[in-house]
């Protein structure tokens, strides 16, 4: 299992479209993806679950990924978040 804390740097944080992109990216990997914030844990492959995290800009999320492609999944997610979900700001 790989675990990493990632900080949201895009202006709107984990809003609906960003959550959809994150989930769609996660679905391309076989590994199980869990995202936690405070005492709430979300399934990284379910948009409605991810939205429950209610995470604005600056929030640190803990990603726990387990499975055959866990390293690749973490790298891809890290990149998406740091590219500000390709939103430009």
């Amino acid at each position: 299992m790989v675990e990493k804390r990632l900080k949201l740097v895009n202006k709107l944080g984990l809003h609906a479209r960003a959550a959809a992109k994150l989930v769609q990216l996660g679905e391309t990997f076989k590994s199980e993806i869990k995202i936690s914030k405070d005492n709430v844990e979300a399934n990284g492959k379910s948009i409605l679950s991810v939205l429950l995290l209610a995470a604005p800009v600056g929030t640190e999320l803990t990603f726990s990924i387990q499975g055959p492609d866990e390293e690749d999944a973490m790298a891809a997610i890290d990149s998406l978040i740091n590219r500000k979900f390709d939103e430009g700001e």
Partner: protein
Amino acid sequence: MIGILIVTHGSLADEIMKTCFKIIGERDTVGAYSIQWDDDPTLATRRIEKLLKKLDQGDGVLVLTDMFGGTPTNIMISLSKNSHVEIVTGVNLPMLIKAVTTMSTFNDLSEFAEKVKQQGQKNIYKVSDILSMKRV
């Protein structure tokens, strides 16, 4: 493959579908029919029937309507006698997103409709409850 059709009063059906597509991307097996206030119900029924035929790829169509007892639901009940549909009322955005993102994983229309109904109900929150849960 199961199809999805949203039918409502006013422009809600088209707008909620557009909003859903904006978030998760467009899908071609999802359709909407907004019954405007001055539309002729007989004409609307004929058009919806055509749309249903187009959306039914063999496993039936899940119809999401706005409110039980309203014209959109009543029209769908009348059409259900001759087509393979399940109707779930009270369409909301989380319900629609869940339905559209999981439609390809179901073969059984009745089971799919039950799941979508549950998700629609489950995803209504009193926000202060969620926020106080996070503070614990």
